[in-house]
Every structure is written in structure tokens, then in C-alpha cells.
């Protein structure tokens, strides 16, 4: 059973999730019955935690190009499993412990990697352009939803984060309050209009209209609909499916 560690929210605005191999050890049985309890021994790594590539082991000595590809695959898998975050999230106890260990001369692997990255960063210059959120062609700036110039400048620090959060909440609350006020005005106008109706029509107007909403009401989307696009996609899908049937 995998256990996700919840880091306390200290100064950072988000919590991070860190998987390390020692968490994949099965500590208790999962099924609600006593079936299979005999098989589970404490401290045993789960079978599915190992990524075994039998191909690589048997074919490596025989065929060279296949072996190279599988070793690339293994290397990629190893890279993925060993991937680390650019900034490590450490609690104050951990920071103190690391400082003490450095005084004694012991440096953990992650700390060593961090030191290397800091050195690399000092030599390189930072990329100044704003980071792209989302898929490259369809993010909000290129689509014209946001004016890139009007975005306030900020650094990735806690104080700037707090300032941005304050402005964000201010803007949204203002809009919310305006919307609530407008809606209550609408209701008030409707009530006044119903009061102003003559008696025979007032009864009909007060009857709530319970017919269901129209199903084909168009919902606003990011970009406007392209005429004929839907049919093109359907055609292409039909053609590709026909091809597969022939095979």
C-alpha cells in the first residue's frame, strides 16, 4: 500500500509529494478477508515495484542494436525513477540536520546534487521569458485571453506571492460583490414588474415555468467553433476505422 506523506504548509504555498522506494514496502494486507494472509510477510517489496525488462537481460549479449535500444529504455526508466525536483522541500528540522551533517563532513546525495545545480545556475543565466502554462499553441496568452504586458512583474518569493494573492482575492471579491448586487437588482426589477401587471396577468406571471432548459444551448468555450470541423474529424475517423477493418 502506498502512503503519501503530507508536508506541512510552512512558507511555501503548495505541498509536494515525494515518492521514495522505501514506501513501496507492503506493511499490511489489503483484502478484507483472511485469505492470503499467510503469503504476506512484513517488509517484502511488492512484485510490481520492480520494473523488470527481461528483454534486456537475455538479448543483450546476442543482438547489439536491440540491446542498445533496451538499455536506452532502461536508462530512461532509471532517470524517471530517480528524477528530482529543482528545489528541494525541507522542513526546518531537516535543514538543521543537514547543516550539522555538513559540519561533520557528511553530505547526502541530494545535497550534493543541489550544490552542483547551484554551481551550474551561477554559471548560466536565467531564462527571462515567462513560463508557458499548458500546451504551447493553446495557452491563454497566445489565444489572446490575457494581455501579456499588463501582467505585474514578480519574483518567485514568498512576499511577492502574498502580495499577488492579496490582489487576486481583492479583484475577485470585487467582481463577486458586483455580480451579487446586479443579480439582486434584477430580482428587484422583476418583482416590481410583476406588481405593476394588471390582476388577470399577474396570476399567469407568478406561475413558475418548470419546462426543462433547452439541451442544445451553446456553452461558451475558449475559442469560437469552426464551421465544418466536426464533420471533417468524423470523416477522417470513419476513413481510418475502415482501413483497419480491411487489414
Amino acid at each position, binding site marked *: 500500500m502506498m502512503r503519501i506523506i503530507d508536508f506541512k504548509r510552512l512558507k511555501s*504555498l*503548495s505541498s*509536494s509529494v515525494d515518492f521514495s522506494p522505501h514506501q513501496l514496502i507492503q506493511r499490511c494486507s489489503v483484502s478484507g478477508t483472511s485469505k492470503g494472509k499467510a503469503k504476506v510477510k512484513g517488509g517484502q517489496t511488492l512484485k510490481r515495484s520492480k520494473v523488470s525488462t527481461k528483454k534486456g537481460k537475455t538479448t543483450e549479449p546476442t543482438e547489439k542494436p536491440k540491446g542498445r535500444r533496451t538499455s536506452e529504455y532502461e536508462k530512461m526508466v532509471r*532517470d*524517471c525513477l530517480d*528524477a*528530482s*525536483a529543482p*528545489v*528541494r*522541500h525541507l522542513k526546518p528540522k531537516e535543514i538543521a540536520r543537514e547543516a550539522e551533517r555538513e559540519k561533520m563532513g557528511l553530505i547526502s546525495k541530494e545535497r550534493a546534487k543541489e550544490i552542483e545545480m547551484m554551481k551550474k545556475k551561477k554559471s548560466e543565466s536565467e531564462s527571462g521569458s515567462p*513560463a508557458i*502554462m499548458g500546451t504551447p499553441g493553446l495557452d491563454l496568452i497566445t*489565444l*489572446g*485571453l*490575457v*494581455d501579456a504586458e499588463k*501582467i*505585474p512583474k*514578480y519574483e*518567485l518569493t514568498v512576499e*511577492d506571492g502574498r502580495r*499577488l494573492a492579496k*490582489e*487576486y482575492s481583492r*479583484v475577485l471579491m470585487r467582481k463577486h460583490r458586483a455580480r451579487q448586487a*446586479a*443579480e439582486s437588482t*434584477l430580482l*428587484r*426589477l*422583476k418583482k*416590481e*414588474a*410583476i406588481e*405593476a*401587471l394588471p*390582476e388577470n*396577468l399577474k396570476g*399567469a*406571471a407568478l*406561475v413558475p*415555468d418548470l419546462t426543462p432548459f*433547452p439541451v*442544445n444551448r*451553446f456553452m*461558451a*468555450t*475558449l*475559442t*469560437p*467553433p*469552426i*464551421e465544418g470541423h466536426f464533420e*471533417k474529424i468524423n470523416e*477522417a475517423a470513419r*476513413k*481510418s476505422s475502415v482501413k*483497419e477493418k480491411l487489414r
Partner: protein
Amino acid sequence: MLGRSLTAARGFCTSNSDKIVASVLFERLPVVIPKIDPVVYAFQEFSFRWGQQFRRQYPDEFLKKSDARGKGDYQIDYVPAPRVTEADKSNDKRSLQRALDRRLYLLLCSKAYGAPNGKPVWHFPEKVYESEETLRKCAESALQSVLGDLSHTYFVGNAPMGHMVIQPTENAHDLQPLKRFFFKSQLIATNKFKIEKCDDFVWVTKDELLEYFPEQADFLNKMIIS
């Protein structure tokens, strides 16, 4: 609050000799989501980048694996349509493709009821109430006379959404005060529309609508949100 109409300050209770007109506020809902405030976007970007700092960076070749196209997949690249259409650039008020992120309201120009001296005037589609069942049916027939049929319209609720009491001032024509009730109805599922029975029609946004009716500007401001 009761009986206080917003154009004239008369507090009458309704008498049956008043002329009642049902008019329709026909709107096209926005097709595209509205622009995002830069402050909001800045905060979202900040929180995204802050979170990315603490996330594992997988090797690029692993992330690019999803770009490989499988055999038999149709290779149509999606090019999104622009949000500012040509109707926007040419400011063609008759087309429905104009302000895609805002609501558009229909206005007609013809010899309206209650207009001074029968001159063509900009007004909402309307009809005088004459002993039909409900006022909403009167409004529906008003819209029907303009559009032809009601298949792509949806009337929101049985009750009107606002009323205006118009006192005739200098005119010899109508000596009776006029009560105009507005009904809300929405356009569904079409892009083009054929509008007959009037000299001219326009699809306008809220700001332009306020220009067309300068005296009733604040009432319309309250009745129409965006």
C-alpha cells in the same frame, strides 16, 4: 419599493385603461469566455511556477513520447479559430459573429407604437397586449412576427424581467400612459438569422445599447447585466 417606476415618478396602482406593451429582449449568449484579468493570471502563473519548483523533472524524451503519432490516427492538426472575427474588425452590426465574448441584443428600427409622429425609431421587438392568455404569449407572438418562427428561441420564465412606464408628454397621439414589460429570451443554436418586417435591425452589445436609448440609460443599465 412598490409602485416606484423608474422613468416617471408616479405612484399609481394599475388601472385597466392603461395600454400594455410586451417587448422582448432577445439576446445571444457569449460564444467565447471573457478576457482574464492580468492580476488573476499573474497569481495563477505564480502558483503554477511555485508548484513546478517542487515537482520532479522527468527527462524530456519521456515527456515527448506522447507526441508520437500512432498508425492510422488521422493527422489533422487543430488550428484554433481567432477570437476577434472579421465582423469585429469591420464592425458589421448585423452579423452575429461580432462581439463573441459578450452578449448581443436585438434592436429593430421601424415605426414603433408610441413613437412620436410615426418616425422610424430604434426599439425592441414589441406588441400591444390585446386579450391573449398571458403576456408571455403576446411577447412570443411579437418575436414570431419578426423572426418567422420560434424554433431557435427560448423564453426564460413566465414573468417579465422589468417594466417601464412611459408618459406621453407633447404628443397628441396617445394620451394614455404606456406600460412596457420586458421579457427575456435567448437565441439557441444558430448562427445566421433572417429578420423581416422592419426597415433595419442591429445586434448590439450593452454599451452600444445604452447609446441608442440615452434617456432610459440607467434603467437599462440595471436591467441588463453585461
